[in-house]
């Protein structure tokens, strides 16, 4: 299970790029909602923080447990007109009230238990992930690289950075492993990303060439296309024309699955349902 000393590189995703035709015996779908999309890089700290963690565990395809932890972010930079607020619908006032012990509602009307201190919420999420990892779980989510980065970001806030890199592969992994027993690199190596899976299934259509932005093309019939892109056959099209969006929401709609509405718990469920549908398709279904 643990690959601290293994050769698996942190950016290697052996479960990506393949068409899955079976559902893992223990599948754990998870997701975070955040104050923004700036998760930072190795050199620059991001400004965004998790405000909720959601996780749903499936044993042999049957939902066994669900966990949802709201987290009060340390920064209050979340105006009501922000993109993040429009996405998940939780305002600073909501989070303040929730952290003070009140029960707030999510966008779908579900009553949520109070928000936790971000340190407590993070440790509960890591402990839950470690619990399933030690049972050999496969992790699942949509564009989970972002969520793994948010785990790192939140972890650094309370546990600091590693003093030194152990190896090029495991340097950033060490603090989380040490504090929680959750081996994030091993988890990445056992992660199925529904975005990558959809890509492998060619759900987004053939690859396109992206010329310099701002290119305007005039076709022979006189049609002008602004910001044109070229498809694999050399045809010019408008960006994203006839190409499904790569969001979880769009893919869910493609399969007739109710999207999670940017609620960490419901998005985890939606990603799992999407994956089950993709597996069905790969096995010769619709």
């Amino acid at each position, binding site marked *: *299970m*643990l690959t*601290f*000393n293994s050769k698996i590189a942190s950016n290697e995703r052996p479960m990506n790029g393949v068409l899955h035709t079976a559902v893992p*015996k*223990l599948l754990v779908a998870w997701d975070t909602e955040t104050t923004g999309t700036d998760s930072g890089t190795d050199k620059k700290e991001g400004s965004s923080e998790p405000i909720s963690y959601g996780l749903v565990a499936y*044993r*042999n*395809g*049957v939902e*066994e447990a669900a966990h949802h*932890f709201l987290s009060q972010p*340390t920064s209050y930079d979340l105006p009501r007109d922000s993109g993040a607020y429009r996405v998940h619908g939780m305002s600073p*006032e909501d989070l303040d*009230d929730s*952290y*003070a*012990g*009140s*029960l*707030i*509602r999510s966008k779908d009307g579900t*009553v949520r*238990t*109070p928000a*936790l*201190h971000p*340190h*407590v919420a993070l*440790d*509960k999420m890591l*402990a839950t992930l470690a619990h399933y990892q*030690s*049972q*050999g779980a496969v992790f699942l989510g949509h564009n989970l690289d972002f969520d793994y980065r948010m785990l790192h970001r939140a972890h650094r*806030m*309370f*546990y*600091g*950075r*590693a*003093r*030194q890199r*152990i190896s090029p592969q495991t340097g950033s992994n*060490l*603090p989380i*492993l*040490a*504090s*929680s*027993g959750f*081996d994030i690199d091993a988890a990445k190596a056992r992660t199925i990303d529904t975005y990558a899976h959809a890509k492998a299934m060619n759900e987004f259509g053939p690859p396109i060439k992206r010329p310099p932005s701002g290119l305007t093309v005039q076709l022979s019939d006189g049609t002008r296309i602004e910001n044109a892109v070229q498809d694999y056959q050399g045809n010019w099209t408008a960006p994203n024309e006839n190409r499904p969006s790569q969001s979880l929401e769009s893919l869910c709609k493609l399969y007739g699955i109710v999207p999670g509405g940017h609620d960490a718990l419901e998005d985890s469920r939606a990603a799992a349902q999407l994956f089950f549908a993709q597996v069905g398709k790969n096995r010769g279904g619709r």
Partner: protein
Amino acid sequence: MQHAIDNQLEMHFDYPSSSPGGEVSRRVIPSGFTPEGHVRGYDLSNGMWKNWKLNKIIGPSGNGMQPRSIEPPEDIGDSGSNLIPGPSRPNPTDFNPKKVKINIDAPLKAAPPTDMEQFIKNNYADDYEHPNVNAFRDAKENGQQVTFEHEGETHTIIPRSINDFGRSVPHSTVQGYCTQHGKEEVITPFDIKSVGVIEPQSQELPTPSYITQRSLREQELKNNAEDFKKGIDLTVQPAAVEPTHEEYEEARASDIDPDTFDKATYKRVRNLGATHPQIIEAISANKIPIEDYEDAYKTALSNNDVFGIDATSNDTHVSALGLANKRQSAYNETVNSLRSMRAGGQESPVSSWTPLSDDDHNYLAEQLFGHHMALRNYKGKHETPHLEVPGGRRAHEWVMSECTKLDPSLKAGMGARDFYDSSMILPNDNGWSTGGSSNPTNNTYTDVARSLLNHYTATGMRANSIKDFIVNRRKKNAVLNIASSQFFPYEYTPEKYEED
């Protein structure tokens, strides 16, 4: 407010701040009223006695009212007006009044001044004496409204408050409801040519929008709690298998660590179908933590279902043993990884954290235990947000039992059902602290829980054996269960706890 004074309570409310950003939350012990009608109270955030303007207090908020967390020092009075909280202003988020600016085009007493401020200084000792301020003050006291003209518009203000923080400088403002425009307005009396007509109020002074909105919000949150209560059932259902006292005790004695052994887990596994001898074999002969055996047994049952295996209880047990033993290998790898990290000096920042002393550790565990004992034993109706639900007392008892995993000596207090001391309820967290090391001197619920969390993170780094690792994990999970249960143990379900 009077209730808090009479009953010697501590209040949480929001109050305008002098710094940008509007209101800040305050924890205040009110003692009475000043002759000016202000509330006299001890500010717990900076340890000072202050006067609080009643019309500026928004709330109660946070914990609302609660028993005093400390006894305030003797009130020796203010040394100056600087003790009065900073400049008053409307709530910045909910209230956006129009400030009426009117050019003075006529003198108040003499020829038109060229420098208004100097004119005021020359003619009035302070703005209390300004006729316009006096007119509004009288109107407020007499329940009247004031009508005046400004740039072709008529304003009729029912004064709500007069912010008289200006001395010698014409800065007094009047906040009130304008019946002409149907909204809250703030005016500077010095800017008004003439106060015009003063007459009885034509209508009741309406509640300002920010108060209305807050009140609506409070009602919404109350409704949420009511809806939540309707959706949960914490009634203990009889189980198919009720283990005997002897079975529990044999399982406890066989466990990897009897102090952190969880009776409820044992009972759940029995009700999954495992027999007592099978469990003893797993936890004693195979040294498998009972919680891992439970996970493995559930997996084995699930595999039977999915793959159509017609398994006997023993087949399931053997399968569960195999799965749980694989997990033991994973723990071994983790412990080895931690050991090589330490040996190779490949340490994380956590490595430098110093675990708490036994005394500090036990003191913190006792504080959390006492918090939930108080909530369990309280006979009255809890103030929001401490949720009152049927079966809720057992939920708090579950958290108490989690505390006994940290310090088994606390088990002696489990039976004290009539003891109640409100001072055992730990205060709520109002601030942020991302410091890494444990600090047992802090005393909010979250601070106490986080100190223990950091402690078990530090001790987890030092795990030298699978037993160390498992026992530490059990204790850290107990702290995590406690940490998320301050107001109510929302993660509790009846099968999570079994009484001793």
